[in-house]
């Protein structure tokens, strides 16, 4: 190799190394004079709402010229893997999204900055008080509520009409639902669809009038008679009015496609499905879920500041804007991107008249009887334990009572170990 060639090679290598070690746009420390950059990590924006989030950021940056917001997204399935690793490596994003189910563990581990100081200087009355309280621990505001969504009963009006059955109403009971489901099942149509898993169970338990934990929160009580009734209600469906796990066969979005094809009369699912059902060729609507005791699943997401954030004040300002500004409320409503956690429902009155479904106000019924998921520090293990127990019972391997007893004993352990 000639000397010139060697020099060229060495130069190329140096350039390559420099390029290889160059930071990307999300982590470059290049805030121009006086400006601060806030990193925001989110799972709920991608893939469908990136443009909406961008709109909110533009509005925020216009109102706060000294702050730039950079966004990083990850799909929900991988979001927490990435977030936890970043926190472990001391490179947590300044601000990040969190669902209520994981909030408790993050709060207990000291992974959330206390926002009380900033909040004290601020008027937080725009937020619904209940959702604000959800993210308080020991009197400290550790996150701001960002959005909520509710689970309702979706139903295919055409199928009900064809069968000559009255449409479900807000005062329906479980028995009425089952009776209608049985009549609607047949000829390639299923009457009902409700997955057998933790989130359906905790809600069914509340609907049966039971409690998941003892009052002091130290013991699992879901193996009560109400728990058995709730489990039985869920397990009665597959194989009678709903396809079995074997029939679903791991097909992704099986229930969504079934409903879209007009082959499903009733469907327990969340308001996040509204956008996807815009163009279905039949009439459909929603109603608050049938139950002996009204109880609805309401899921809340929050946003938090990392304790290591360089500019906590700016970070707080950004989160405040992201969660409760008019721009955000309007953007969320226009794009059916969950709902803003505001005290005054008038702020999003337009949302309810958008239709379909016509009865969007059922969401308010659900909120009125909202029951949040039970949460502990070892949340995921608890969820898996309960779901597994239900599956054992569904497969007939264990009687319902015993499956729930075993699961409750395991959950007691998890509560103790945390």
């Amino acid at each position, binding site marked *: 190799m000639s000397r010139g060639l060697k020099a060229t090679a060495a130069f190329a290598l140096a350039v390559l190394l420099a390029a290889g070690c160059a930071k990307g746009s999300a982590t470059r420390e290049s805030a121009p004079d006086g400006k601060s950059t806030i990193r925001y990590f989110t799972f709920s924006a991608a893939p469908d709402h990136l443009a909406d989030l961008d709109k909110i950021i533009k509005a925020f940056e216009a109102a706060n010229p000294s702050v730039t917001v950079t966004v990083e997204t990850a799909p929900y399935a991988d979001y927490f893997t990435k977030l936890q690793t970043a*926190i472990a490596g001391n490179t947590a994003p300044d601000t990040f999204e969190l669902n209520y189910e994981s909030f408790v563990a993050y709060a207990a581990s000291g992974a959330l900055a206390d926002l009380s100081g900033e909040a004290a200087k601020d008027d937080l009355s725009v937020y619904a008080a209940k959702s604000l309280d959800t993210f308080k621990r020991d009197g400290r505001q550790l996150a701001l509520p960002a959005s909520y969504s509710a689970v309702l009963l979706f139903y295919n009006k055409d199928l009900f009409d064809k069968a000559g059955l009255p449409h479900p109403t807000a005062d329906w009971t479980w028995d009425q639902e089952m009776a209608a489901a049985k009549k609607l099942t047949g000829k390639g149509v299923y009457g009902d669809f409700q997955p057998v898993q933790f989130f359906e169970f905790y809600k069914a338990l509340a609907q049966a009038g039971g409690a998941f934990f003892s009052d002091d929160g130290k013991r699992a009580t879901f193996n009560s008679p109400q728990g058995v009734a709730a489990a039985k209600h869920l397990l009665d469906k597959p194989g009678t009015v709903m396809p079995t796990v074997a029939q679903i066969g*791991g097909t992704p979005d099986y229930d969504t496609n079934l409903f879209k094809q007009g082959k499903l009369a009733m469907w327990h699912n969340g308001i996040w499905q509204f956008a996807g059902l815009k163009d279905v060729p039949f009439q459909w609507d929603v109603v608050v879920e049938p139950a002996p005791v009204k109880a609805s699943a309401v899921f809340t997401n929050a946003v938090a500041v990392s304790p290591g954030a360089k500019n906590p004040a700016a970070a707080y300002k950004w989160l405040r804007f992201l969660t409760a500004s008019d721009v955000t409320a309007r953007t969320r409503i226009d794009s059916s991107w969950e709902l803003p956690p505001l005290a005054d429902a008038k702020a999003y009155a337009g949302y309810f008249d958008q239709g379909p479904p016509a009865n969007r106000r059922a969401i308010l019924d659900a909120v009125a009887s909202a029951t949040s998921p039970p949460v502990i520090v070892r949340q995921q293990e608890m969820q898996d334990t309960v779901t597994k127990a239900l599956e054992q019972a569904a497969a007939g391997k264990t009687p319902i009572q015993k499956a729930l007893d075993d699961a409750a004993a395991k959950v007691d352990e998890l509560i103790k170990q945390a």
Partner: protein
Amino acid sequence: MTARTTGTRPDAGHAGPSGSGPGDGPVPAGPPRRAKVRKAATVLLFLAPSAVPLVLFTLVPMAGSLWVSLHEWNLIGAMRWTGLGNYAGILRDGDTWRALGNTTLYIAGYLPLVYVGGLGLAMALNRVTRGRDLFRAVYFLPVITSWVVVALIWKWLLNPSEGIVNKLLAVIGVEGPGWWTSDAWALPSVIIAAAWKDLGFVMVILLAGLQAVPAEALEAARVDGANAWQRFRHITLPLLSPSTAFVLVISCISGFQVFDQVYVMTSGGPAAAASEVMVERVYDLTFRYGRVGDASALSWVLFLVILLVTVVQVRLQRRWVNYG
């Protein structure tokens, strides 16, 4: 391990006792010491490019995980020293042993299938000339298709009530099993899908090995009256033994770490517990359950198992592997 280490020892004894210390013996120690330095430099030249990155980016993190295994840690909070507590807990946990059992079963089912199938494909391909490129490409397609898609397809084929496989079985009067939804058949379902996907991988390795089988030797054997089976048994198979040895060792190492396959086929399904494997537990403990200390301890237990199996395999292979 190295069958030929005694073959050439160019200058092993040259340095002798006198040349061992640096700078002792003014004149005579010169040349041997320089040779020694040169030899060391040669070894470094060949090994350092891989050794340095392996130390930095694999061994250092390995040491890190060993350190983590002595702590209780959920990634987002502080670490708490527990000594060997995680190991004690992991070894007492019935789930560990069940997962290890499932992993072993997986290897026992997967390895023969994939080796015999891959060898069959490689031999058949080695016999034909027309369309060879096309066939190779087609057989390699499953290898490069993502597990997410492969799992979707196999779950659909092995759907207990609507799947093609059970419908075909019904034609011959057999009632098909519940496949990946049943405790007994979940692991076999994964094995079938994994073997199908990896056939092409094994085929490629064995094809590279088969290129080294001299056609003259086979021809000579044919002239001597050896039949196809005898030629295969006494010429091809021995010449293929290094490739076979490699496939066995590597498939065992990766088989003990089987993860994606099981995760996409059965996790979240009704037979998830019945088919749980070691690394699936490691993943869940790390990223879902926030029990990184337990996950690390479990990984080191798995490491010891794999190391033991590999060392035994390599020892045994000295007896039957033939490096021409």
